[in-house]
């Protein structure tokens, strides 16, 4: 056994690649979350036309995070990014009471899609720093998360702009990766 093959083996053990898909309505905080994960400056975010992608190392995994724009016109393209998704991360702006129903509806649509069947779901209940934000338990109830039976799921309260709660969510993601191969 040569040195090269040992190195290769080590590499393949330490770096498993995962595909994470970040979805949610516009202004939910997906890009801010993505930048927070990559430890980048979050103060100069712009609305996403199209998508962003970043690779982040976390707990020995290489996470390829896909952040797709949330505006209504882009939502029909979400489907093009479903294939081979390991974990679905859905971001909710908890201070946007008016669109809570819309966001619940979009999530329900996603969960029915064949390509996302059984894919673990993490919901980030974002913007908890705002006084008008609903607590994560209430958001879970509104969205009917407790009715989900076909996959593991978790809701995590967070503040994407300062990173509160983001790490806890990612730890859950790394623990709940579906076993493959």
């Amino acid at each position, binding site marked *: 056994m040569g040195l090269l093959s040992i190195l290769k083996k080590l590499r393949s053990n330490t770096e498993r690649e995962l595909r994470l898909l970040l979805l949610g309505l*516009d*202004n939910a905080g997906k890009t801010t979350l993505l930048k927070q994960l990559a430890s980048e400056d*979050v*103060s*100069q*975010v*712009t*609305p996403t*036309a*199209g*998508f*962003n992608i970043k690779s982040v190392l976390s707990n020995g995994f290489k996470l390829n995070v896909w952040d797709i*724009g*949330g*505006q*209504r*016109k*882009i939502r029909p*393209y979400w489907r*093009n990014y479903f294939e081979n998704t390991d974990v679905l991360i859905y971001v909710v702006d908890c201070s946007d009471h008016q669109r809570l129903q819309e966001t619940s509806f979009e999530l329900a649509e996603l969960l029915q899609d064949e390509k996302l069947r059984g894919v673990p779901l993490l919901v980030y209940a974002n913007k908890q720093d705002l006084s008008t934000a609903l607590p994560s338990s209430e958001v879970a109830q509104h969205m009917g998360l407790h009715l989900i039976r076909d996959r593991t799921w978790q809701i995590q309260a967070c503040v994407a702009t300062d990173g509160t709660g983001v790490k806890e969510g990612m730890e859950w993601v790394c623990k709940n990766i579906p076993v493959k191969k």
Partner: protein
Amino acid sequence: MIFFNIWSVLHWYVRPFVKWFLRKTTRLCELQRICYGDKAGAQRTCNVEKSLILSRTKDVKEVIAFLDAVVVERRFIPENFDDILYPSISIIMRTKKIDNKLHPTFAPSFRQCLQQIWSYKQLIDEVEDLRCTQYDYQNSTHEEKLLKLWNLLQPHEPLEERISKQWQDIGFQGDDPKTDFRGMGLLGLENLLFFATIYPQVSSHVLSHSRHPKYGYTYAIVGINLTSMAYYLLQDGSAKTYMFNAKHYLPNIDLFHRFYCYLFFEFDKMWIESKPENIMEFSMIFKKFENAVRSKLTDPASVFRIKIEIDNI
């Protein structure tokens, strides 16, 4: 990396000798050689700036510190130029032993460089202020600006309500643009507004492209992303080529807006020429566009103009 370190150390020691040698042989100091030898505009001004930054003369350092302090107080404006620049230039001319009678062209040329360098520095601060001002729907001047933008872009179609799906017609994401400005704050709105005000034909032309049935894009959202590009190019100094080559303008907020208009016009052209499949190709084409702009900005001789070809006649 190592090579770079060795070079910077060498440069530090060798530079004074080279300068001394050239001074003796040409009988001109470095600033004079730049002002006489380099073409007016980005080439000359950037080299003057480099020479001033590298200077180890106490008086020159003090002049730089003084001008920086003026910028912090936001007093570097044309009305004050005489008061500020006259003493600064005479101090430098005295230390560098430049005789104004023998070299009458030096002072005006040098002054133009100083005006550009410190106007640019002040512009960075002013742009940052605008960017940090969040769009506030309770602020009536902000709201007026937003409505003005609508009227300029859609002169024949009145906005039915403040909260309306119509905002999507000019490329905002939802029925209220207030959340779309995000990290670019008021700067994004001011940019869009300037484009529509100063170049009404060009902006409506670009807007009509954004509604192309196949190659359409979201006008305002793309505009806000271009604000962020213009902002980064200004911050890292790349925009100096554009700003210093603008013949009749000093770097100020209007020139920043003009830079933005140039970017918007050029981006639109590249987007349409790329014949994208759909909006999901945005990040790729946007990156390609940024690279093209950056490479054009590295050439100090580049001139930037909006070349309007009337293709709708």
